């Protein structure tokens, strides 16, 4: 997967900088994601992983550099227009709405393209969401909320999914289920940019890893080479 040299990447980020007010969070991030790949962003707390996803999504105060998706420049666009071009975001805090029940949460993101999963398919992936359809979104367990947060962006027809630490704080069996889901999504042709701190988990789903530090990408590692790079990675990740 590393050598898709010929094809133009689906998402191409160059020299991306981002600010929250005065605070400068990203200092020139560059990365490529090809159609159908699952790529992770690894890095310590505060390295800028979430900020990278938020900057791609147009959710930071200010950003500069270049973000092209399907060849189109997005860096100046409003976040709703970025979503409409086919990128979907699952935030680290999950963003489940308390005043909406599970089904309303699931149906909230508008379809941006044809070809999303049907509600039935999402219920097959995450049967809990069907059982708890009428519960308020935030009454779900952490794992169920994570399933809901992922499930609701599969409906929209978006082809690039930005997932921020979906395994965070969840029981191992749920983490496995999320891992299985991500592999299934890849098999269905979704492209995924996954933020992870848990690189044991990342290893089970990804083709390639970017390592971030101080608001920059400092390393790219193919999944096959992950084990041989462990020493270096331990240094970056502080584990």
């Amino acid at each position, binding site marked *: 997967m590393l050598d898709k040299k010929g094809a133009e990447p689906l998402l191409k980020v160059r020299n991306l900088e981002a600010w929250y007010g005065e605070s400068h969070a990203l200092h020139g991030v560059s990365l490529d994601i090809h159609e159908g790949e699952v790529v992770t962003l690894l890095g310590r707390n505060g390295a800028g992983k979430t900020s990278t996803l938020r900057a791609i999504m147009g959710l930071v105060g200010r950003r500069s550099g270049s973000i092209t998706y399907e060849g189109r420049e997005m860096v100046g666009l409003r976040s*709703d227009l*970025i*979503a409409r071009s086919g990128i979907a975001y699952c935030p680290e805090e999950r963003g489940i*709405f308390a*005043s*909406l029940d599970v089904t*309303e949460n699931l149906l*909230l993101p508008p379809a*941006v393209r044809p070809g999303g999963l049907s509600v039935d398919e999402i219920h097959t992936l995450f049967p809990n969401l069907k059982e708890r359809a009428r519960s308020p979104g935030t009454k779900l367990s952490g794992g169920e909320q994570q399933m809901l947060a992922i499930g609701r962006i599969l409906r*929209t027809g978006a082809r690039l999914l930005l997932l921020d630490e979906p395994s965070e704080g969840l029981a191992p069996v749920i983490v496995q289920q999320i891992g299985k889901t991500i592999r299934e999504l890849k098999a269905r042709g979704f492209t995924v940019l996954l933020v992870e701190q848990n690189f044991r988990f990342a290893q089970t789903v990804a083709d390639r890893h970017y390592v971030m530090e101080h608001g920059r990408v400092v390393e790219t590692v193919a999944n096959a080479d992950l084990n041989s790079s462990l020493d270096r990675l331990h240094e970056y990740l502080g584990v």
Partner: protein
Amino acid sequence: MDDFFGIPAPLLFGQLLLGLINGAFYALLSLGLAVIFGMLNVINFTHGAQFMLGAFVAWLLLNFLGLGYWWALLLAPLIVGAFGVVLEKTMIARLYKLDHLYGLLLTFGVGLIIEGLVRNEFGSSGLPYRIPPELSGAWDLGFMFMPVYRGWVVLVALVACIATWLVIEKTKIGSYLRAATENPALVQAFGVNVPRMMTLTYGAGVALAAFAGVLAAPIYSVNPQMGSNLIIIVFAVVVIGGMGSILGSVITGFGLGIVEGLTKVFYPEASATVIFVVMAIVLLTRPAGLFGRA
């Protein structure tokens, strides 16, 4: 059924009805305020002026275009709502990034300007607006006479409140609205044009105020200060119900209208202040309001 606690039934029910009518206006107006506040985080101090504009537009439609009450009920909310849309787009939208206080000051100022302009143009003595013939007269309920128009106002206000509640709680648009009230940035990142939603929400809240204004035109005389007199009480209602709670503002609106009516019967001296007394008690015991989330 002649008297209760020594109070003659017609007096008691007459005041109860008056209370219900006032409550209907409190409910409609605080509902609009709650919808606007929930979505925009702006306390719309222009609300009273927009209510008054609704009544004036009804009067203008009748006297310049010959369009009567029923047309006014439809057109005045659209016209005043459109004015609200322009106001939001050109001014209020610029203040979202700043402290609440700026939105409050702006809408307060705009309200004063509107009221002043209307007073300059039409004077402050008030213009008559007739009850439409279909709704004039009274029903004899046995223990009292019930003016048809008053019954109509209570009924329509109830229907409008329930309809608004249904839209917000049971429809797709309502789920966008509730979600955007919680986390507008995320809703926008899903591809919803949240700025446009805010504009339309403001327009809808303003239209609701204008609708109440048309309903009020035949009851109160149409005058420039009809809104500011009412809105002070409505803000107390909003504080009591809990800022931003839809159902809370409806129940509190009707409830306080009735409380006010009963006070007129049993202790008339306190009728002008009872709502503010309730407000003080609620603020002391439940600062987020009866239905507000702390």
